[in-house]
């Protein structure tokens, strides 16, 4: 009948209305600041820099290779390479970023920087409550603000972090083994030393 | 009785309801529509019979009801049941029912027959309303409605250009007459203050109103009653196909044949005669036996001329329906004559008998056409006597009734009564002679048609395979044939029951003169039959030459008759041209209207210059130039007011208003 569709629709909305009171399954809204939905592991907001150990300055994994700066589609990353070097976790002397700025008002959370980083130094954070009074300076994050301990990363993305940590531990072990071997070499003639020597 | 008069409206309402319901039925249910229409009209016929019987027993009666009121003006309408309307009522419903039944067979294969029956029912309703109305206004409305129905039915096959043209022609031609009718109606209303015929002494046909109209004259010295009557007669002329407005009726044969039978033979065309009969007290106002009212004289002459014209034209036609159409025109002329010379009863009796046998003839023609797959040209027919015996027999009855074969056929008696009253007509004997001549010619052309159609052998492929139609077609023919014969029982001058019924006051004629006229009429008929029989006895041989026997005998006359006395050509050469010219002139005037004022101003200026020239002869040349210049200047000046700038015109208008107001105020205060 003409108008039957309207009645049908009214019945549907009435069911929803009543159901939202009687059926807790229907009313899924959370009272946000007090109640929060647990974040999904793969959720991402903006990048941060991972550091190992306790000292953000010393443990920073970033070697200022500037790949992410080049790859960033909206060009929100600014990196200034340091003049000096500092040892990385393997003890190798590396450059480090004297300046590492990300403009969060420009960043589009595409995660490309994370994908291209060979050092697992930049990762996506889940922090989204970024409200600030100053929309220019307030959203421009500097190196020290960006640096987060590895523990933070482990908390956010446990699977990823576990894999990365395992790999790094392996590398470290390999490096340690190499170092041990290198340390042992002076005692034995190094087989790999050139015959010409 | 009172009840009957109050509920008379049911009779027209039945077909109207059928038409209304039929309109809304889907096209595929056309059989239902047809059945509804027949049932409605048959029921109406039963009611009509009851009404007729009650009138036979009692007298006339009528009832009026208020229609609408506006301010102090109250318009009332009413129904009347007097012998006149009762007889018409019965005739129309009976003939109509038979024709409806015939149509169910005739139109069975037409997918649009639902529409056909709606129109037919509408027509029947309007016609019955026309008959029953006790108010000239209501009669006029129904009059226009039957005109509309006629238009719709003539143009029923509107996709055929001749049919559409014929429908338009019929509508427009009758409109000319209806204009006169309308003016007459308004005039009558303004004079008598009512359009009701009978209203307890206050109706316009009752003595009080008539005596008010009698003795008053219009500006031209014409009696008021005559003027109004003539205007009403205009309507009758248009509707009844009288000279000179007859041209639409033959063309109207483009409609389906039942339509021709019902509308253009039996009922609608007779409405003009009926109108005159209805208005007879007004029409006959101020006349006496020696000196009839002028309107009646006009009617008699119109009728006489029409009768002869129609008969003569019918002689030379070759379309089976056209012959009948001209015959109808001729017979309508007879009715008018009878009405004018012998009173309403004489004319109406012929109307009623004619309705039966002309319907019969048309239906017979329809049966022939139906049997011969649409062939209408009588030169291609022939020999149908054996193939369609029933049609032949009934057609012969109709033919003899129309020709006025003595004793057994109603047409003889009713025509005889007309001739009888014509013979006593004081002003002139010429109509009588014309009438006798027409009677003879009528017999002649009907004989011709019979021989062409039914005698001999078939002359065309269609007629060779002709077949008799179903009982739906033949039974109505039989009934109508029976009625054509039976009606003679009540129409003879020896026992003129019908005449008495219609007009109790009509004087019985002396038997001596009756016999004389009877014999004369029979002789005329016999002469016509004999002439036809002799002339067309060897039709098959004669047609080998491709010419009608009569054509060989009187070629010029025959051509003239075949071309219908060139009426259509005459109208085309005169009226149509004139109208065209008038339109052209109007257009030209329209185009130059803007300069009319300018021209007027130049005329004025020229007049001024002419004056100056006469005063100053010496400088004639210069002054002429000046005059021209002045004219041109004046024209230019005035043309500026015609520049399509409304505000300038408005300014001048307002200036005039101010001047007018100031002047009026000045006059009022001083």
């Amino acid at each position, binding site marked *: 009948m003409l108008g039957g569709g309207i009645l049908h629709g009214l019945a549907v909305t009435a069911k929803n209305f009543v159901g939202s009171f009687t059926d807790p399954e229907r009313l899924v809204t959370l009272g946000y600041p007090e109640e929060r939905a647990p974040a999904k592991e793969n959720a991402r907001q903006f990048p941060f820099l991972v550091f190992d150990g306790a000292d953000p300055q010393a443990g920073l994994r970033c070697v200022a290779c500037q790949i992410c700066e080049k790859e960033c589609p909206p060009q929100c990353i600014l990196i200034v390479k340091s003049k000096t070097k500092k040892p990385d976790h393997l003890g190798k002397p590396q450059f480090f970023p004297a300046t590492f700025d990300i403009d969060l008002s420009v960043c589009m959370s595409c995660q490309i920087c994370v994908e291209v980083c060979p050092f697992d130094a930049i990762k996506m954070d889940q922090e989204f409550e970024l409200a600030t009074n100053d929309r220019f300076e307030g959203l421009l994050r500097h190196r020290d603000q960006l640096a987060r301990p590895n523990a933070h990363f482990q908390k956010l993305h446990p699977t990823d972090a576990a894999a990365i940590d395992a790999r790094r531990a392996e590398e470290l072990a390999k490096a340690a083994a190499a170092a041990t071997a290198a340390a042992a070499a002076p005692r034995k003639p190094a087989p790999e030393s050139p015959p010409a020597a | 009785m009172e009840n009957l008069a109050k509920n008379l409206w049911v009779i027209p309402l039945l077909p109207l309801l059928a038409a209304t319901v039929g309109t809304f039925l889907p096209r595929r249910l056309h059989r239902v529509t047809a059945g509804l229409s027949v049932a409605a009209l048959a029921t109406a016929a039963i009611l009509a019979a009851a009404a007729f019987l009650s009138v036979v027993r009692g007298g006339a009666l009528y009832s009026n009801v208020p229609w*609408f*009121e*506006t*301010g102090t003006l109250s318009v009332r309408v009413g129904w009347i049941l007097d012998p006149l309307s009762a007889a018409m009522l019965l005739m129309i419903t009976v003939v109509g029912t038979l024709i409806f039944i015939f149509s169910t067979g005739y139109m069975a294969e037409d997918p649009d027959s639902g529409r056909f029956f709606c129109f037919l029912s509408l027509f029947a309703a309007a016609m019955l309303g026309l008959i029953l109305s006790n108010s000239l206004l209501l009669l006029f409305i129904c009059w226009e409605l039957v005109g509309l129905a006629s238009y719709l039915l003539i143009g029923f096959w509107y996709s055929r250009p001749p049919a559409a043209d014929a429908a338009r022609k019929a509508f427009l031609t009758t409109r000319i007459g209806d204009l006169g009718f309308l003016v007459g109606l308004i005039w009558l209303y303004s004079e008598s203050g009512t359009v009701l015929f009978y209203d307890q002494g206050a109706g316009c046909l009752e003595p009080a109103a008539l005596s008010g109209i009698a003795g008053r004259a219009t500006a031209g010295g014409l009696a008021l009653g005559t003027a109004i009557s003539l205007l009403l007669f205009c309507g009758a002329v248009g509707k009844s196909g009288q000279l000179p407005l007859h041209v639409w009726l033959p063309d109207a044969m483009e409609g389906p044949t039942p339509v021709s039978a019902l509308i253009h033979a039996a009922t609608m065309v007779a409405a003009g005669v009926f109108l005159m009969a209805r208005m007879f007290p007004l029409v006959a106002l101020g006349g006496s036996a020696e000196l009839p009212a002028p309107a009646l004289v006009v009617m008699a002459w119109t009728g006489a001329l029409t009768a002869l014209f129609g008969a003569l034209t019918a002689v030379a036609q070759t379309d089976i329906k056209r012959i009948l159409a001209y015959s109808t025109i001729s017979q309508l002329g007879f009715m008018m004559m009878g009405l004018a010379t012998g009173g309403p009863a004489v004319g109406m009796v012929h109307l009623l008998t004619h309705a039966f046998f002309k319907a019969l003839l048309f239906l017979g023609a329809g049966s022939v056409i139906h049997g011969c797959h649409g062939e209408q040209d009588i030169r291609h027919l022939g020999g149908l006597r054996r193939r369609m015996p029933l049609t032949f027999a009934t057609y012969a009855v109709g033919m003899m009734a129309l020709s006025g074969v003595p004793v057994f056929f109603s047409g003889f008696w009713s025509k005889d009564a007309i001739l009888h009253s014509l013979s006593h007509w004081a002003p002139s004997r010429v109509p009588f002679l014309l009438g006798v001549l027409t009677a003879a010619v009528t017999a002649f052309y009907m004989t011709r048609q019979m021989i062409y159609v039914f005698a001999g052998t078939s002359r065309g492929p269609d007629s060779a395979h002709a077949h008799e139609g179903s009982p739906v077609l033949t039974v109505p023919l039989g009934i109508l044939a029976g009625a054509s014969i039976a009606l003679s029982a009540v129409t003879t001058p020896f026992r003129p029951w019908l005449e008495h019924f219609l007009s109790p006051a009509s004087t019985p004629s002396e038997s001596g003169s009756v016999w004389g006229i009877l014999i004369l009429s029979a002789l005329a008929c016999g002469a016509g039959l004999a002439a036809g029989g002799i002339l067309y006895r060897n039709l098959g041989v004669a047609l080998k030459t491709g010419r009608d026997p009569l054509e060989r005998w009187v070629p010029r006359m025959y051509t003239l008759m075949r071309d219908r006395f060139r009426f259509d050509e005459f109208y085309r050469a005169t009226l149509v041209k004139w109208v065209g010219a008038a339109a052209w002139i109007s257009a030209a005037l329209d185009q130059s209207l803007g300069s009319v004022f300018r021209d007027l101003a130049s005329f004025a200026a020229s007049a001024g210059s002419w004056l100056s020239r006469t005063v100053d002869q010496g400088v004639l040349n210069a002054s002429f130039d000046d005059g021209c210049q002045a004219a041109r200047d004046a024209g230019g000046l005035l043309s500026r007011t015609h520049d399509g700038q409304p*505000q300038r015109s408005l*300014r001048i208008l*307002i*200036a005039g*208003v*101010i001047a007018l*107001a*100031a002047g009026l*105020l000045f006059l*009022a*205060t001083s």
Partner: protein
Amino acid sequence: MPPEPVLSLAFAIVAGLVLGGSVAAVSCRNRVHAGLFLAVALVGLALVFLRMGAEFLGFIQILVYVGAVAVLIVFAILLTRGSDSAHERRSNAPGIGIGLAVLLWGVLAWGILHRSPGAIATPSPPPSMAVRDLGERLLREELLPLQTVGLLLTAALIGAALIALPEPGISPRPSGSHGSAGTETPPSSPT
């Protein structure tokens, strides 16, 4: 109730509304403003009607003129902009027009003031207008005019719709970027 003075403050206000609105309506450069001022003048006139006790007519006045005619006018103004500039050009010979109008008013005022003041005397019982009486009058004595007006309105409705329909033969010359966006029919979506 004491008889109210002839020239009361209320009358002055509504008369000012009427006259001010009228003057602004005919003199405004901006056409839409002119239409709106027309509405103001007509509301003022409705108030005058109300003050005269013609409640029904006052409301009818607003219903028809403000609700329909003024809206129609501003609508038409919107639909017909585009080619002409939004603001009026100089008036058409304002001197003559205003002169004529002032002259006419002078003549009329002279007539009103001098034409035998006794003739227009206030009748002893001030007339009142019952809506029922008005209806009875319309449907009894004025039935024919009423129906005629009904016919006229129907004809006007149909006629206006027909006139304003875009003629199929004529495609308007392409106007500038600011065409009448509201009147164009949306292209039919392919289905």
